[in-house]
């Protein structure tokens, strides 16, 4: 078991190195660092300002091979080596747009992001699994069909529309919640988060419910369910003790992988509702041509994803006796 985990983590590290290579190709080889610098300081800036900016932001080295250096420096004193070194040591440097340290922005944004993603994640999960279990219980009846049609309809609406409609209906027409903004004060934070969470749950509802329903139906069709009935289990007991317990394994694998993303925030929701989290930071970076921040966000996203995968495999191995006990 331990050997399996070690191998799994090892592969994760290799994948991460691959991701870094991809990022390097995208952000240093395809985009010219000179371009970034020119965009940041302006076309008409004096050459020394331009050079100074490049030095400050670590763009002042050759790409892969440093012909000016000797010995190992030929390879270590380059953008490629520097990129790996900084990313792996979480030294993200300064924003290309406004020179603020990226690490600080990350620390500031994490809490508001978690404030929206965690309730969104928990509520979405509970609602989808509960509805899916309910529908699976009433499979092949009109309740099932109605919910399926609803899922299909909600799935076909663009996420952007949910946000617009939510802000318009609840914020402007009904005036229940503030339409946007954020206040970390625990007494009022819920008022600011209610609408984005509601919108987020709604936009994910259809696809998730259908997914969980399929899992439940698959389990309901299995032979052990018939065995449970034959020994006298009632419907509710069959659903909870047998079907849900078995379905938890595939559900778990689907859920655990999402946990790391709670940290990267919800791009659209945060930016729309004025929540100063990491999602909004990313949107800002896109709009401000802030490559270094974007690079960092992509890296963190991948890092968290890989961590999520490893976490999933471990929890899967622990949850399923067939894997755990081999």
């Amino acid at each position, binding site marked *: 078991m331990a050997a399996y985990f070690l191998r799994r983590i090892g592969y994760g590290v290799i994948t991460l190195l691959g991701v870094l290579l991809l990022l390097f190709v995208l952000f240093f080889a395809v985009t010219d660092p000179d371009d970034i610098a020119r965009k940041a300081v302006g076309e008409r800036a004096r050459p020394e300002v331009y050079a100074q900016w490049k030095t400050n932001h670590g763009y002042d080295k050759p790409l892969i091979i440093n012909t000016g250096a000797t010995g190992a420096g030929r390879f270590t004193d380059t953008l490629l080596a520097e990129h790996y070194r900084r990313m792996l040591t979480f030294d993200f440097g300064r924003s290309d747009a406004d020179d603020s340290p990226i690490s600080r922005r990350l620390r500031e944004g994490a809490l508001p992001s978690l404030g929206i993603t965690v309730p969104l994640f928990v509520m979405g999960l509970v609602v989808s699994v509960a509805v899916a279990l309910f529908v699976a219980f009433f*499979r*092949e009846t009109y309740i099932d069909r109605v919910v399926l049609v609803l899922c299909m309809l909600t799935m076909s609406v663009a996420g952007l529309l949910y946000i617009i409609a939510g802000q318009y209906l609840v914020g402007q027409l009904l005036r229940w919640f503030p339409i946007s903004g954020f206040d970390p004060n625990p007494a009022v934070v819920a008022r600011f988060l209610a609408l984005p969470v509601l919108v987020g749950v709604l936009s994910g509802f259809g696809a998730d419910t259908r997914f969980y329903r399929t899992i439940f139906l698959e389990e309901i069709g*299995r*032979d*052990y369910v*018939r*065995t*449970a*009935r*034959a*020994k*006298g*289990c*009632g419907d509710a007991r069959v659903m909870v*003790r*047998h079907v849900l*317990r*078995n379905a938890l*394994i595939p559900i778990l694998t689907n859920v655990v992988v999402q946990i790391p993303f709670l940290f990267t925030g919800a791009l659209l929701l945060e930016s729309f509702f004025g929540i100063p989290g990491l999602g909004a930071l990313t949107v800002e970076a896109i709009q401000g041509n802030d490559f270094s921040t974007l690079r960092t966000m992509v890296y963190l996203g991948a890092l968290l994803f890989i961590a999520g995968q490893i976490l999933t495999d471990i929890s899967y191995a622990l*949850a*399923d*006796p*067939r894997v755990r*006990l081999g």
Partner: protein
Amino acid sequence: MSAPLLAVENLSISFPGEAGPVRVVDRVSLSIARGETLALVGESGSGKSMTALAMMRLVPKPGRIQPGAHIAFEGRDLLSLSVPDMRAVRGAGIGMIFQEPMTSLNPVTTVGDQVLEAIELHAKLSRAQARSHVIELFGLVGIPDAKHRFGAYPHQLSGGLKQRVMIAMAMAMRPRLLIADEPTTALDATIRAQILELLRDLSAKTETAVLLITHDFGVVNEVADRVAVMYAGEIVEEGSRGELLGHPRHPYTQGLLRSIPKAEARGHRLEEIKGSVPRPGHWPTGCRFHPRCPHAFAPCPGTEPQRTTVSATQAACCHLLDRSVEP
């Protein structure tokens, strides 16, 4: 003769098809006396499993038991019982084991807990009492090292052991009737003999009636008291084991018996029944067996044969036996 333990009358089961409901079991009647072992034989798809599941009211959706059927168990009509009452019958009055021990056990629960659940559902016992009962049961069905096996997961047991667990689960509440749906089909030959012997011993010891579903006449010969033969959703012949194996009257039964390899007849060609079982919804008119029957004659395609009693215990549905029709 006293009232039978279980009496099925006029049982029909249908599934919705493209063009209206399709019957897979058609007007089946049969009965089982206390302590008796009845073997239900027939080719694949003839409706044996559905008949058995109907007795537990576990016909899978969207299948339906047609109105007009009666299933009397110990004098009560199971089809009109309330859901909680029916639940009390399952497991306690009638136990059931299935063909596939591999998939019939819950993979994420220990086998001990699964048998324990069968007890908890019907009896108010403390957990410790129930647990020792389970271990006792494991011993009874021949699971070695029962204490240790209590905490095992299904994937850790061999097929034979899993089927023993299934038997322990079905017998946990000492049901009066045990339905065994092809309990040995998925097992290899030596294990098959052991499981059959276990079933026979258990039913004799506990005076449990057994409905044994099989398509293996070797199994029939070893354990059955009586035999019923199903073809295309109907019971075509029934009788005591001796009668049926010695003097089968329905050409289908005769065909089935001729197609068994016999040790003394090695070298002879086996005779197979020509053709294959018609699918539900595509049953021929008249006698459903007539297209495959070597003795088919004038009335067979047109009129349905009536059930004709041959002796006090044997009866068959065939025009050859019906004296009013001239061959």
